[in-house]
């Protein structure tokens, strides 16, 4: 497969960019943030995502989706990285949809149509400690009566405070299992955590939460491969989101270099800044190639897709960090003010870098995979 977007994918990209430019430019984020919106996101926008077919990008046609692939999901994630609207896309349309699509029962797949329509938010609860460590999940699901009893604590549950359903990863005697849980079930406590980027997540505690056997997604103890697949996809899409944010941060910085004067020159005329900009451009190209490579590997079902996703996530995280750091620095004082947008990208990049494993985590995955 050629490492470029197909014509159809370019059309999708144009459609998403156009839609977001109109309905969710960066002031959309500012409005939600500055009005202290109770949800922290716009349900209307999410429905429009449904109508446009973006929310169902990965969902099969049977459930109202468009049945496209990882590359297309990445295209949407990258565009979201450019204008930064808080959106359930990542948590619901990528992570949760992947799990339900691959392992959900017919009844559970009901949620797919709701996601595809932009009507439901389904959040995945994986992380527990300060860092992403899906190989060390401690939340337990003990058999209890007909079903299970869940105990544990989750963090960085994307959109968890407004979720219509939760997917909880928990250990059983048979291994890792995934449960589809109603957030209103007794024993579940959800605390919204307002984050530095004004995007949405929650901390969730589960105390003796009773769920029926049909809450189980797939077989008991069979959750690991299903989760891994969703995580790889999520990581590659997060990489795409990082690229979008890094790219846009670079674009507005380039504009600034071409308009701001100091010492009687445009600051973009200073060779030291030119070389740093040229380096950054090159790094962004690498990050984008690595991400497209990972997304394609996922679509092709390659065995190495997980590793490719780690490379993409690690590289995109590093590069986007560089992009926002250079962006703020090259903006000078005004880059530090909330009035300019560059700081919003810095904040978003930090959160996306941390989401589903940061660049250190994924570099370590690479080292282990290579047996270093």
């Amino acid at each position: 497969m050629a490492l470029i977007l197909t014509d159809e994918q370019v059309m999708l990209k144009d459609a998403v960019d156009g839609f977001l430019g109109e309905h969710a430019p960066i002031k959309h984020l500012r409005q939600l943030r500055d009005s202290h919106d109770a949800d922290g996101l716009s349900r209307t926008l999410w429905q429009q995502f449904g109508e446009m077919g973006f929310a169902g990008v990965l969902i099969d046609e049977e459930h109202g989706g468009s049945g496209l692939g990882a590359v297309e999901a990445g295209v949407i994630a990258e565009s979201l990285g450019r204008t930064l609207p808080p959106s359930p896309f990542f948590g619901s349309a990528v992570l949760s949809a992947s799990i339900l699509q691959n392992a959900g029962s017919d009844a559970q797949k009901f949620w797919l149509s709701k996601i595809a329509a932009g009507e439901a938010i389904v959040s995945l609860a994986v992380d527990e400690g300060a860092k992403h460590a899906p190989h060390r999940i401690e939340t337990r699901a003990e058999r209890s009566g007909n079903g299970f009893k869940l105990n544990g604590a989750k963090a960085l549950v994307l959109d968890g405070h407004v979720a219509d359903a939760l997917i909880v990863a928990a250990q059983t005697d048979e291994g890792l299992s995934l449960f589809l849980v109603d957030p209103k079930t007794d024993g579940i406590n959800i605390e919204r955590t307002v984050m530095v980027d004004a995007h949405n997540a929650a901390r969730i505690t589960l105390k003796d939460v009773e769920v029926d056997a049909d809450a189980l997604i797939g077989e008991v103890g069979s959750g690991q491969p299903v989760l891994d697949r969703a995580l790889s996809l999520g990581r590659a899409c997060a990489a795409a989101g990082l690229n979008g944010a890094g790219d846009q941060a670079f674009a507005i910085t380039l504009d600034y270099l071409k308009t701001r004067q100091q010492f009687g020159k445009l600051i973009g005329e200073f060779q030291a800044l030119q070389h740093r900009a040229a380096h950054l451009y090159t790094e962004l190209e690498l990050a984008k190639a690595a991400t497209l490579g990972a997304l394609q590997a996922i679509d092709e079902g390659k065995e190495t897709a997980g590793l490719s996703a780690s490379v993409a996530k690690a590289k995109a995280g590093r590069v986007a960090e560089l992009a926002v750091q250079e962006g703020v620095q090259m903006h000078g004082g005004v880059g530090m003010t909330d009035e300019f947008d560059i700081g919003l990208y810095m904040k978003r990049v930090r959160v996306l870098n941390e989401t589903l494993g940061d660049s250190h985590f994924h570099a370590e995955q690479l080292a282990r995979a290579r047996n270093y």
Partner: protein
Amino acid sequence: MSDPETFRLEVRNWLEANCPPEVRGLVESENDLIWGGRNATFKTPAHKAWMDAMGAKGWTAPEWPAEYGGGGLTREQAKILQSELLRIKAQPALSSFGIWMLGPALLAFGTEEQKKKYLPPIVRGEIRWCQGYSEPGSGSDLASLQTRAEDMGDHWIVNGQKIWTSYADKADWIFCLVRTDPSNKHRGISFVLFDMETPGVSTRPITLISGKSPFCETFFDNVRVEKENLVGELNRGWDVAKYLLAHERTMIGAMGEGMGRPLGEIARDSIGTDDQGRIDDPMLRARITEWDMDAAAFKLAMDSAVDRMKAGQAHPALASMLKYYGSELNKRKYELLMAAGGIDALEWESERSHEGDTARSWLRTKANSIEGGTTEVQLNIIAKHLLNLPGA
């Protein structure tokens, strides 16, 4: 003058009598700081008493001459005072741009009248000052400033706008660079003082990416400034400004140095350890260690610069080197702190995170390499003055 040990005893006894328990212990928040001024607020009455007592002794500016309200101490005595304050964990009796910045400028460039008039109230915390340098159009190119002082005979009329004026909304007076000759970039700037209550002065706070900030935009609309309020010569304010910038740079370079727990310990607590007891994130561990190495070397470079300064061997541009490296080091430190904190460090408003303390501090450090002369300006200065590179 008493011998060092006698002096130390005197200081110790005086502090025992005058330093209230409320002002001892670590400074934990902005709230603990004492800024003084006409509209001063104090955390407790003890805070006011502490400022007043120290101010009366002149020990808020220990080495300034006693005739201007200062402590009149020798270098050695000042060190003894400092060590005794440290010993009892006394908090600063006064935080003051007047002491840190205006004072040194007045001592070097002011007239006898100006020193007598302005220095004592600074020492006693009666008048709070702010600094009016930067303008929206003049960032790194400070000398391109446009705030205009029109000569009206016995006074000037000042019009223009300043930015990054820290605590302008709380300050009583401002020391300010204004353009008195539009035809000469560097030799057309003057250094003047005026009351922030003068008609035509207004301020507006700036919100930073890290949240609320002490910075303001400050506007001058036909502000009257008396001629006697000129410091130094007319059109030679740039000399005063440069003198002060060198001070500021060393200060900012040292920011964050030696503060807080070791990075690696914070990471270990947050992330946990592997079965060899190492931080369970080998890549982050490597980067933290590299930072540690650089920080250790930087600390020694700072010490060495101070020793060279004392020995009269230091090139003035050394301050640019320390400012450059120190601010980049501090930025790296907070990037690593964010990585160590992980998900916990992303919270912005929760009590658990102390209202996003780590994240806000992280974002705040991004200004280190901009304020007080950008990293790029420091590198230019090093290239020009220390390396004598052509055209730099």
